[in-house]
């Protein structure tokens, strides 16, 4: 890297792009000698393709999508690397008020294990009555939203591929479809579940962190070749993002960060909603709120340091839901997407990552995919 480097970075307007947006807006990138050009995109497929053909140098990307692209799943194989996590968690599962009433009639709806069992009963009853299966929306096949929904449902005894419909919809359309009765629920990032709650048509059933405690949600992805060609550029970018995250995480900057992110060129939603997302304080239904400090994690507790175990775990979810077949070579390739070595070369004193964790099932061990997958009643095995 010589002189000021121009770096084009694609992003989707979501609160979990906060570290990237703030690093650029507040001049942390400039201070590292980077002239960052942010490009707002409308679909994950666009982000991936523009990264693949070099129109973007880096991108805010769904963590499972970085793994999928590297493995060549659902698309051409473009090896990507993720030297930093941009966010853990941040999603929520919401259902229509009608479905919520039916679930609540089955009993307690506090714990995901309870709601999953209640949902399974409703699914079975609908089948007996000859009614259409339930339909849930999510944002991409290779997304944490998809895996969160599937993991949760399967714990109740539902086979998400046979017992109901899972469809991909752009987040802004989710609320509309819920209102029209074409969706019964969805798993999506902020602020879309809050929009459904505020409109009185949906109820937030669970935060994503109630399903998986620390799920790798978004990464900054680069083509493998970019990292090889210009390691000093990658290091500068990582330092800028790390400072951006620290600024976002500092409580005294909360108002300023919410205001900046609310701008139309960034996330473009009300600053108050962003504030609530950042503090993990959400309205889940009329006159009912829920708070969880882990609702969305940007940089705290060393969350930005990528952990290869996270990529292995993502690969395991892909295997479980039949998105790919197992091979030890693929497992190694998946593992290689997350690059703590690049992170450590740029940033001092990072903590090590905690386990991902789930509300049910065994803890995951990347050396033993077979046992992990065999411990679930529903899903593929190796």
């Amino acid at each position, binding site marked *: 890297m010589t002189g000021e480097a121009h770096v084009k970075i694609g992003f989707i307007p979501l609160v979990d792009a906060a570290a990237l947006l703030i690093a650029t807006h507040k001049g942390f990138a400039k201070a590292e000698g980077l002239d960052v050009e942010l490009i707002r995109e*409308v*679909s*994950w*497929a*666009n982000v991936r*393709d*523009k990264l*693949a*053909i070099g*129109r973007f140098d880096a991108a805010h990307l769904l963590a499972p999508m970085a793994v999928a692209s590297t493995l060549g799943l*659902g*698309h*051409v194989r473009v090896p990507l690397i993720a030297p930093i996590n941009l966010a853990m968690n941040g999603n929520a599962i919401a259902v229509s008020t009608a479905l919520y009433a039916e679930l609540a009639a089955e009993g307690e709806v506090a714990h995901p294990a309870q709601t999953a069992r209640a949902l399974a009963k409703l699914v079975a009853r609908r089948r007996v009555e000859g009614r259409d299966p339930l339909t849930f929306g999510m*944002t*991409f*096949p290779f997304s944490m939203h998809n895996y969160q929904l599937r993991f949760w449902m399967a714990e109740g005894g539902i086979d998400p591929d046979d017992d109901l419909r899972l*469809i*991909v*919809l*752009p987040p*802004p*359309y989710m609320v509309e*479809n819920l209102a029209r009765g*074409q969706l019964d629920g969805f798993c999506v990032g902020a602020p879309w579940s809050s929009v459904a709650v505020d409109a009185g048509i949906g109820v937030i059933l669970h935060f994503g962190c109630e399903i998986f405690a620390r799920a790798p949600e978004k990464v900054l992805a680069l083509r493998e070749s970019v990292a090889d060609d210009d390691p000093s550029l990658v290091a500068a970018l990582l330092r800028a993002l790390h400072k951006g995250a620290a600024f976002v995480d500092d409580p005294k900057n909360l108002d300023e960060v919410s205001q900046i992110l609310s701008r139309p060129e960034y996330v473009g939603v009300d600053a108050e909603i962003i504030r609530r997302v950042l503090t993990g304080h959400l309205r889940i239904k009329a006159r009912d709120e829920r708070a969880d400090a882990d609702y969305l994690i940007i940089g705290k507790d060393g969350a930005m340091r990528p952990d290869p175990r996270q990529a292995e775990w993502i690969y395991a979810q892909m295997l479980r839901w*039949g*998105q790919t077949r197992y091979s030890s070579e693929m497992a190694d390739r998946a593992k290689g997407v997350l690059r703590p070595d690049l992170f450590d070369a740029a940033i001092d004193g990072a903590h090590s990552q905690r386990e991902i964790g789930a509300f049910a099932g065994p803890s995951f061990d990347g050396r033993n995919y077979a046992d992990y997958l065999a411990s679930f009643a529903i899903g593929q095995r190796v």
Partner: protein
Amino acid sequence: MRASDIRELKIVIVDESPIRSLILEEGLREAGFTEVERIGEMHNLLKHIYAIDPDVILIDLENPSRDTLEQMFQVSRAVRRPIAMFVDQSDAASIQASVDAGVSAYIVDGLKKERIKSILDLCVSRFKAFSKLQDDLEQAKSDLEERKTIERAKGILMKAKKLSEEDAYKLMRGAAMRENKKIIEIARSVITAAEMFK
């Protein structure tokens, strides 16, 4: 390529801009593709696409429903599996040109490379034609706005200084030359000043 090959190919255009999709449809028809359908309504998109069962799907890159199409790669029960236009990377230039023009293609597996290329090239030229059309329209709009502003400023000067229309225009043009500005900028200053003196 035999003429019958072209006729059999079913193409779907997914685009919320009716004018652009019409321009593209016309281009495809002129090139001999007769089975072309347009989808402008994004509700139940996959259902519509499965019903048509196309060989090629063209979608504009401003369309957030592109992610919905990506689900087609996952559905094992689908009769035919479409693939992304990127799968054959031998023609990277053509792919880059289409992304830059703002269009993407999904193609059913097994389609010949040269046919894909001809469709992509056509998309690129039609999308470019559309965006030129849009630019021209924008230009015409802003030209009209400028003319209106200059007329208004002229009227203000005629009234305030009791000038003829020609002299009012000359006055502004003289000021523009002296200050090295455009006449539209002088006209805007005249209007601003007049509003302050109200």
